[in-house]
């Protein structure tokens, strides 16, 4: 070992863990490409009114089921609407469903998991059995039943997906909290007389964020597929507002006459889900190298 490396070593130890994770993430080309696609998708969703070539709900009976052309790059649908414009606006429904429903699941699941893991005893027993029960009902079936109860709409689909995804976050947070609460730094915080809520929020929570972040990224991918599935079944975004899932539902009836109607919205779902999956994989490797 040279003198130079000996001098460099302490600075490596002092590196902020998030900066180290970012450095590791940057080395993974797949994850960086996925991050770029996610950023582009978010921009497309935000700028949809300015970048879509046509109004996504404007029908034209002279343009019914026209194949892709220079005027309509992705073709037109069964009532003459521009498929490209609908795919661009559909990004809003899918991304907001992904972000909002995972936000609901994290917002409810993390505090409950923290409570179960930190408090233990009967609180843990009750919450854990409830989580087991919810996880015993298949994800999509529970989401369908909840969406049907709330009524078919995009916002209700988001709530249904969020509630259905909550148990996974409760279980993950509980497990991580159980592991963290026996660590020396938590013991030290307890020894100096910190109240329980402060130990849980200021000492345990910040140390369990990395696995939650990875799970959230993967859960967004799952939520995008779930929203598309609910919209495909008629329980999500309602016509004429565009959504990738509902576009596929309509396209199924015209697959022989207008296959482009099915290709593009499906490809958009695939691309978005693939990006979040790759990003989640990259984050896992960057935040926890043992998982390689």
């Amino acid at each position, binding site marked *: 070992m040279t003198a130079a490396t000996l001098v460099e070593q302490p600075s490596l130890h002092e590196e902020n863990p998030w900066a180290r994770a970012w450095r590791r993430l940057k080395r993974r080309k797949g994850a960086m490409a996925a991050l770029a696609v996610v950023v582009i998708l978010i921009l497309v969703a935000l700028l949809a009114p300015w970048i879509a070539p046509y109004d996504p709900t404007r029908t034209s009976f002279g343009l019914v089921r026209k194949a892709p052309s220079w005027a309509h790059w992705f073709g037109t649908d069964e009532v003459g609407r521009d498929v490209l414009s609908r795919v661009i606006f559909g990004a809003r429904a899918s991304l907001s469903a992904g972000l909002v429903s995972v936000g609901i699941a994290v917002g409810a699941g993390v505090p409950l998991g923290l409570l179960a893991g930190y408090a233990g005893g009967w609180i843990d027993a009750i919450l854990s059995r409830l989580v087991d029960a919810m996880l015993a*009902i298949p994800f999509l*079936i529970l989401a369908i*039943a909840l969406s*049907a*109860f709330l009524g078919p709409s995009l916002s209700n689909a988001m709530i249904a997906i969020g509630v259905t995804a909550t148990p996974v976050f409760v279980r993950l947070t509980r497990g991580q909290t159980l592991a963290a609460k026996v660590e020396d730094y938590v013991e030290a915080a307890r020894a100096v007389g910190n109240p329980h809520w402060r130990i849980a929020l200021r000492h345990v929570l910040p140390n369990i964020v990395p696995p939650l972040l990875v799970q959230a990224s993967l859960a967004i991918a799952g939520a995008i597929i779930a929203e598309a599935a609910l919209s495909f079944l008629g329980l999500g975004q309602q016509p004429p507002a565009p959504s990738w899932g509902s576009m*596929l539902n309509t396209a199924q009836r015209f697959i022989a006459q207008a296959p482009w109607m099915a290709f593009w919205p499906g490809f958009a779902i695939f691309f978005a*889900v693939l990006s979040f999956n790759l990003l989640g994989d990259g984050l896992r490797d960057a935040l926890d190298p043992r998982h390689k």
Partner: protein
Amino acid sequence: MLAFLTQRLLQIIPTVILVSMLIFGLQQLLPGDPALIMAGEERDPKVLAEIRQQYRLDRPIPVQYFYWVKGVLSGNLGESMRLKASVGSLVREKLPVTLQLAAMALLIAIGIGIPAGIVSAVKKETAWDYGANLFSLWGLSTPNFWLGILLIFLFSVTLGWLPASGYVKPGENWEASLATTIMPAFVLGNALAAVLMRHTRSAMLQAMGTDYVRTARAKGLAEGRVVLKHALRNAMTPVITLLALEFGTLLSGAVLTEQIFSIPGFGKLIVDSVFNRDYAVVQGVVLVTSTIYISLNLLADIAYMLVNPRLRG
């Protein structure tokens, strides 16, 4: 072993009770009054009152729950208000269809996922490995309803090789049955193949780095024998338990697949029942699916215990 089984079974009881409460709660969540649907367009108040009394819809919710559990325990899952048939008979009629589809999907997933995982691990960081990883990313990211539509376009509309929808029982005509189920089974098994590939690859990589594999190589055994007899046999333990758990997931995935291919199975039954507010059927189907899922979890635990001598204690 007996203590483990007893403990595991005792843990299941509160879960099953809570699942039954959640499932019964679904009835309260679904919109609309079932009595109004059954009474038809005239909605005669006398008929409405009779229906409410007959189905105990006029009783408090805990009482309704008690009668429902009592019925379930004696094998009575209730009656479909829409189809005028017992839920038990509907389950008996539809479940084999979905089980056939799920079993075929499982075979397809095993046939693709495990060999792909082995090749990917043995040929690590080669074109084979990258190809297998691409396949797994494709499988995990493709919505099965889109894949179903694309396959219908290719094999039914363009090539005309397979029917786009419908179902024939294997007992009636096995060739026609295979033709109607092969596409939906592939669609259902696609994502599972990707999951299996990832787990097999990871388990194989771990096994290939162990001392017993190094010893087998040092003895001069052929590489194929080392991989298949020594590494694979040990790597399959976690994969087999995963299969038991994933079979339950297939039942959930069948909801969309059956919808796309118009297959009259469990998945289609639940979607139709939700849209028609057929409460008893929704409860029955969800209860049966959850029970299968919980039982598979238990079986996976037991299987893991049996094949792993260190856990037997």
